[in-house]
């Protein structure tokens, strides 16, 4: 049987091709790993604040015709980049007498600290910086005119934070306790 020997050049080319394929696969593996790492790093740089609520009180002040809400808020920044809280809003959802569901947004009022003085260990007022991997906490105060909520049925509360990038995060289902001086 006479068979032509395979030319050494073909063998070299075949080996070279296999080697190139192996190098490519290794390179692909490392590229995918690097991409995944870069994505994870990028994700950690995406601004995100995580709010959590501690205690929540409401105090009625008939002399001033207002209700003042005090909420103890903890905000953590698990990301790799610094952030800031630019707005803190209390959203009150209520049902009017004409059965219309409304949600009113109230901005935190730093001037109402004195209404809860002995509970106000630390005041959290926007704007406030939250460094990367840091947490801030404190009491937030909201003032509502008594006439605004007169005759309506409150359906729920939600606290929303807006960060300096315009991202919003919220804490819902707040159970608010009536405040009295004995507390």
């Amino acid at each position: 049987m006479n068979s032509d020997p395979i030319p050494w050049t073909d063998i070299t080319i075949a080996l070279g091709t296999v080697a190139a394929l192996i190098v490519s696969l290794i390179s692909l593996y490392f590229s995918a790993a690097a991409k995944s790492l870069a994505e994870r790093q990028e994700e950690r740089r995406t601004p995100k604040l995580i709010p959590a609520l501690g205690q929540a009180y409401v105090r009625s002040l008939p002399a001033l015709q207002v209700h003042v809400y005090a909420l103890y808020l903890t905000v953590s920044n698990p990301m790799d980049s610094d952030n800031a809280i630019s707005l803190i809003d209390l959203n009150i959802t209520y049902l009017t007498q004409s059965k219309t569901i409304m949600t009113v947004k109230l901005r935190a009022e730093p001037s109402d600290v004195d209404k809860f003085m002995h509970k106000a260990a630390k005041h959290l007022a926007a704007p406030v910086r939250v460094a990367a991997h840091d947490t801030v906490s404190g009491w937030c105060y909201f003032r509502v005119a008594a006439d605004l909520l007169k005759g309506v049925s409150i359906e729920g509360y939600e606290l929303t934070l807006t960060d300096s990038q315009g991202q919003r995060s919220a804490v819902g289902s707040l159970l608010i306790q009536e405040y009295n001086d004995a507390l």
Partner: protein
Amino acid sequence: MMRFEKRVFGLPAQAFHSLPLKIVGDAGIASAIIGDGRLIPAVILDTTERPDIAEYIRVHRFVAEGDVNSQWGRPETLPGSVVLILRVDRPVELEILIEFEIVRHGVLVEQVLMSKGIYIQAGKEGDRVKHDVDAPKVIMEIPDMGFRPFWDKLYFKYLTAGMRERGLRRSEAKRAARALIEEFKQFGAVRMPTPRSHSFTGQSTDK
């Protein structure tokens, strides 16, 4: 500065999330302490189908601050009207669309553009501002945002057409429309004297 192209003003019906509200009453309010004494139009909107808007106006009395974005539009479904779209973000999130019939309410649009503001009040057919001057109102700032040139052409076209229908020749109708618009502008430019419009009297004691 943000400017709209002409085509933006011709809006398809899908651009709106709610129906435009009819104006059932209007007036002008000039105050020495608001808007540098400019005459700001006040409109009563028929909110019988939109109790949320009536509630928003009530709530606003108790919340000092508010945020609103505005845009003028001309919906395809309302060829003889322009619509002011108000997207309120605070204290309540809602959308309010106000329909201005070009011929009937053109003077109000002129006044909104001149004073850069509008008062809105909730009401129903038959209500008038003078019936209850203390009724809750919300004042909103309405920037021009490039609508003025579009409006000037549109208003002139509709007023001219109206004059033609009354029997005027084309050139006469154009002249009359121009004169009428000029008159509206002069009327709208009236201002209340503000505390800043008076010069201080007496000698300054500052050294």
